């Protein structure tokens, strides 16, 4: 059993609202070539196992894992698919290496959201077919209910949520991978169309296409192959109640539990002190605040104030979503967790370009699989 696992190669393709020039396979191929070059490995000879993340309905293909191996150089190799977020895929590769059976494992996630003509209907089909679907609950409506409860319980405000939008979309201006970069004022957020009170249309991340591939290595291989290995100090993941009726609406216990699991492995007691920056879920602006509280980087009800005080801005003490997050970069469906891990990896290597944060050693990455799930994952990365 080898305990230490590192990310030694990253590659990406996209991210754009539409990618008419590329199929999903071509996009994955491009990302994979970059990742393997970055790691200096040959997928046909060196990489021992492959993990992909995908969901059938999004792909429009039943048993989609059939189509995962070729563009990764993974045909006739140990490949499997996780129906989860990219961070679940990363956690799987982390476990595979820790068994001692594999030294090099690749992880892939992608989004070809622009191909999905009926995304709202597809996502609606994630609801309980007996108890919820007959109510015709729109996905954003469910998010609006959750936001309402979260604001009520935590005493954060709609202005705090709008601050998140302004911050993340401004951060995106410095990230060449971002599709939704813009300088906004609070009023711009509020003057957007309302959607499901208190949730406004400008507080929702819009989708983008893209692919991310990462190569993970055991300690032995990582030190041999890489000059800048990014170590995975801890990973946690958790599900809360599947049904809308029995979950906690005001908080995110799944993120709390996932974070505690990751902190335990990383030996972190005070995340605000131990962690230098974070890339957290902002599918909806309020989710960033909810996540920060569940992650324990502030007390319940203080995430809004923390944002308003500039603590989570790139020049603050605890930068959050310096990449622009999903609001600024675009939501890459189940590749979102890998997009965040990619950002953290580049930051920790000092390769984040115009949005490079200064003196960062430990980064936190967190993701959520969206309405109606209570599925979240957390990774702690360090250089």
């Amino acid at each position, binding site marked *: 059993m080898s305990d230490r696992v590192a990310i030694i190669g990253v590659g990406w393709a996209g991210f754009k609202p539409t990618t008419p020039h590329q199929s999903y396979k071509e996009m994955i191929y491009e990302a994979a070539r970059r990742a393997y070059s970055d790691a200096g490995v040959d997928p046909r000879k060196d990489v021992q196992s492959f993990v992909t993340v995908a969901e059938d309905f999004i792909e429009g293909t*039943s048993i989609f*894992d059939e189509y*995962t191996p070729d563009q990764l150089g993974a045909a006739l190799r140990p490949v499997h698919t996780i*129906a989860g977020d990219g961070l679940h895929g990363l956690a*799987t590769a982390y476990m*595979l290496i820790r068994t001692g*059976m594999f030294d090099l494992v690749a992880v892939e996630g992608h989004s070809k959201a622009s191909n999905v003509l009926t995304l709202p209907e597809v996502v609606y089909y994630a609801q309980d077919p007996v108890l919820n679907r007959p109510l015709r609950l729109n996905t954003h409506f469910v998010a609006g209910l959750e936001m309402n409860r979260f604001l009520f319980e935590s005493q954060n405000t709609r202005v705090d949520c709008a601050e998140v939008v302004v911050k993340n979309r401004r951060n995106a201006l410095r990230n060449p991978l971002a599709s939704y970069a813009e300088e906004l004022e609070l009023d711009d957020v509020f003057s957007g169309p309302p959607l499901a009170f208190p949730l406004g249309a400008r507080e929702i991340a819009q989708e983008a296409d893209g692919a991310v591939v990462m190569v993970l290595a055991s300690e032995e291989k990582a030190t041999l192959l890489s000059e800048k290995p990014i170590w995975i100090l801890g990973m946690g*993941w*958790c599900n809360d109640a*599947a049904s809308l009726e029995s979950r906690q609406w005001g908080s995110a216990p799944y993120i709390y539990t996932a974070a505690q699991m990751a902190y335990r492995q990383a030996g972190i007691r005070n995340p605000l002190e131990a962690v230098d920056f974070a890339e957290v879920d902002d599918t909806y602006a309020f989710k960033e605040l909810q996540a920060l509280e569940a992650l324990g980087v502030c007390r319940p009800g203080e995430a809004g104030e923390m944002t308003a005080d500039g603590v989570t801005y790139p020049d603050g003490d605890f930068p959050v979503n310096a990449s622009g997050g999903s609001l600024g970069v675009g939501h890459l469906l189940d590749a979102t967790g890998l997009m965040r891990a990619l950002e953290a990896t580049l930051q920790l290597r000092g390769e984040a370009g115009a949005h490079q944060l200064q003196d960062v050693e430990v980064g936190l990455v967190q993701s959520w699989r969206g309405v109606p799930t209570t599925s979240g994952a957390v990774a702690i990365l360090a250089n």
Partner: protein
Amino acid sequence: MGMRKVAVIGAGMTKFVRRALETGKELSWEAAKMALESCELTLDDIEAVCLGTAPDSFDGVHMKGEYLSDGAGAWGKPYMRSYVGGGTGVFAPIQGWYHVASGLFDVALVVAEEKMSSFYPHAQAAFLTIFDHTTERPLKPNLLWIFALEMNRYMSTYGISKEDIARVSVLHKRNAADHPCALLGDANITVEDVLNSEVLAYPVQRLDVSPVSDGAVAIVVAAEHVAKRLSDKPVWIEGVGWHLDTAYWTNRDLAYPRYVEYAARMAYEMAGVTEPRKQIHIAEPYDPFDYKALHHLEGLQLAERGEAVQLYIDGVAARDGDLPICPSGGLLGVGNPIAAAGLMKIAELFWQLRGEAGARQVPGHPRRGVAQAWGDLMQVGTVVVMGR
């Protein structure tokens, strides 16, 4: 440091039926509860949950894994769903294995569920969208046709007759007559019955094929130090293997499942099995079609290419033969709720190796068994070697 040893310490399964009244969540929980009770644990003892279930289209639920999570016992726990098509049922225990072998967890619950009857009128239509959207779907292939192609190729390559292949269906369905959860057990079925059944897509006839089914199976896996404390008779996961071939299945030689061979070699190497025909005492190859069991026995290196059928002709495959094959009754007899059917094979090995298989018990205190599943576009092999 050596690899952490992982054992199966409990198992449970629902009846496999054509149309369950229970929801997928309820089926999952029924199996999970039985598995927990079989080793006197409760959900509080479970540190992580792994789910295996095949395509979302059966249930018509997007992110089916999330939907099934509470039924599978994953409330408030680390939970992931893996899938490799039809290979999922034997992959799920591999997922359980790496959860524990990684050192992150000591006890995990593995649940495999399938509810195919929700798809109306017939689950077969869920497979229309498994084909390449550009090169294949316009030809409107369905599963039975492509298996007819593969069966034909297998028969013509090695000169095997339909009469001999029908022996597989007969043995498995007769074995299933002793399985309390079986859907299609039949103690009196004959080769003639198979040959006289309706032709679906020549050479595939109705009794060559496993039935569409609903059901769930669960097992509990544990790290060595916990397994030895909790169980008098842990059954060890000695080897795991899986390989996924290219999606371009039309370029493959359909006579031989190379992906199964590679998966088997991976599992045998880990288990220290160098002579599978001597060291494996029970085999549960994947048998959604009768010829598939033969195909897979060859991939598993338990027979020479084209010669697996001889095991059936000579009685070696019988429950009291030298290498009992599918003593459970397999998919042909017990039923084929896809992912659950694969995990059923693992549960069967668990019961057989502990001597708890009742009327199905193979004689001679078997020490080691292999279970295998297959799936996707004639593409993936998943293999687990278990021993006591």
